[in-house]
């Protein structure tokens, strides 16, 4: 499997209170990679390191087969980037911003850019400083897409947008990906949004990558189990017990990771019985994963 982004042993420090340690991350080519993490976990910093906006203390970063920071202009020419905060020159009009952006990208698709301006209902003569947050979000996405990039790096692209604009922006993104087979690296703390569109997920917390796996494995691997007559100590379980909560009477609810159906035999072996297996959605799984990471259990 080839990788559009590959990060190895990355270290970065910003001040005394924040650092990224031993970060390793691999984004399969053609995947829609959701980069999850709570606020302040290091998602934006990782993206900035990936795009050469920051210099790491050590580690290697390869994007689209080229090395960061050595080949950064070549990488950026093939990468569409939507940052967390709007970064465009706000004194320009929409039309001027399009013309300014276009001259830097040899693959710029002017025809499609014009179509998207119409589709997003953006007023070409309007200054960027007068655009609403939603309009600015659409313009940022438009500029990234009209470059016809091989890799799209989107840092919280829909954060703060209303549901209608969010839907428009994501629809345009998915439309592009389905046509171009581009790789998308999308960071967000809106878990449900990523659950719908991503096929890979990486979870970041406190400057470290907590998990990286296919979305399906992530969703299926974390379960909540209702257990009757549970043992006082779980012992050697074939799965990872993330949490135990007392229920009614002699029952407990266990949150586990790495669950597979044949593992139910474990409960018979310890004199307990498994009453129910409950699927967790991504958000619940995400929360449980972070809880384990922050308070490791034996």
């Amino acid at each position, binding site marked *: 499997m080839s990788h559009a982004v590959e990060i190895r042993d990355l270290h970065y420090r910003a001040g005394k209170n924040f650092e990224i340690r031993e970060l390793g991350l691999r984004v399969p080519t053609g995947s829609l990679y959701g980069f999850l993490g709570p606020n302040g976990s290091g998602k934006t910093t990782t993206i900035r390191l990936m795009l050469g*906006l920051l210099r790491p203390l050590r580690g290697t970063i390869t994007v689209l087969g080229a090395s960061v920071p050595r080949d950064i*202009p070549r*990488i950026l020419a093939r990468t569409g980037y939507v*940052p967390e905060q709007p*970064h465009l020159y*706000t*004194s320009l009009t929409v039309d*001027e911003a399009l013309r300014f952006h276009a001259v*830097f990208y040899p693959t710029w698709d002017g025809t499609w850019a014009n179509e998207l301006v119409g589709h997003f209902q953006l007023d070409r003569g309007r200054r960027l400083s007068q655009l609403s947050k939603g309009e600015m979000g659409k313009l940022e996405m438009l500029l990234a897409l009209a470059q016809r990039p091989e890799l799209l790096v989107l840092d919280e692209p829909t954060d703060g947008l209303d549901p209608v604009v969010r839907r428009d922006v994501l629809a345009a993104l998915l439309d592009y990906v389905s046509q171009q087979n581009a790789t998308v690296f999308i960071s967000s703390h809106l878990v449900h949004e990523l659950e719908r569109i991503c096929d890979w997920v990486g979870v970041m917390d406190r400057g470290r990558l907590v998990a990286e796996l296919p979305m399906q494995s992530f969703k299926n691997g974390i379960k909540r189990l209702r257990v009757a007559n549970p043992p006082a100590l779980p012992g050697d379980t074939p799965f990872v017990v993330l949490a135990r909560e007392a229920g009614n009477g002699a029952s407990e609810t266990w949150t586990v990771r790495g669950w597979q159906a044949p593992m139910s035999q474990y409960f018979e072996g310890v004199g307990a019985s498994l009453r129910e297996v409950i699927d967790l959605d991504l958000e619940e799984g995400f929360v449980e994963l972070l809880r384990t990471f922050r308070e490791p259990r034996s």
Partner: protein
Amino acid sequence: MFRMILFTQWKWSRLTLLPLVVAAFALPLLSVQGAGNPQTTPWEARQLLNALQSWGVGYPVLATMIALFMAMTAWSADHRGRHVYALSLPIPRWHYALQRFGAGALLLGAVVIALWLGALFAAGTASIPAGLHAYPTALAVRFALALFLAYAVFFAITAGTTRTAGYVLAIIGGIIVVQVLLEAAGVHVSLIPFIGDRLILWPGPLEIFSGRWMLIDV
């Protein structure tokens, strides 16, 4: 690419730049207001030179003001966006900075041309006393050199982060504090004039700002 960078620089600076171009054109004209009679006595000619010398202070001041303004406008939009846009464009950073510098320098050319035309017009219309000569081109060249030097210095400072600007201010502040402490301790060392002289007197890097800025001279 350069055309679009030039366009943005023009858009950001035009409203202030246009009055400054007018000022650059007007300054030489205003400086020769006293030169009305070619039959002036040597004493009156000397008075004219004194008046021109007084106006001459305006040239380096104008050059510094324009350079500072142009350098600030070159980077203010990038500062607002924390340079993320410029850094995410697919060109080397030095290339972008060079183009930004070039765009500002090209617009400054308009100011130099305005001053040169103003100086030519002033020299052509003023009655110059015998023994004195007009140097419109030399004045314009000197103004251009001072303008581009000041622009380069301010461009370098404003291109940096707030921290860089802080370091520059801290150095200046440190020198002032040392001078005050030396004075308080009864040590009479003129630190600030010493540094000032090293900067603005030959062969100091800012020497071009000092001396006589004369449109008409002997």
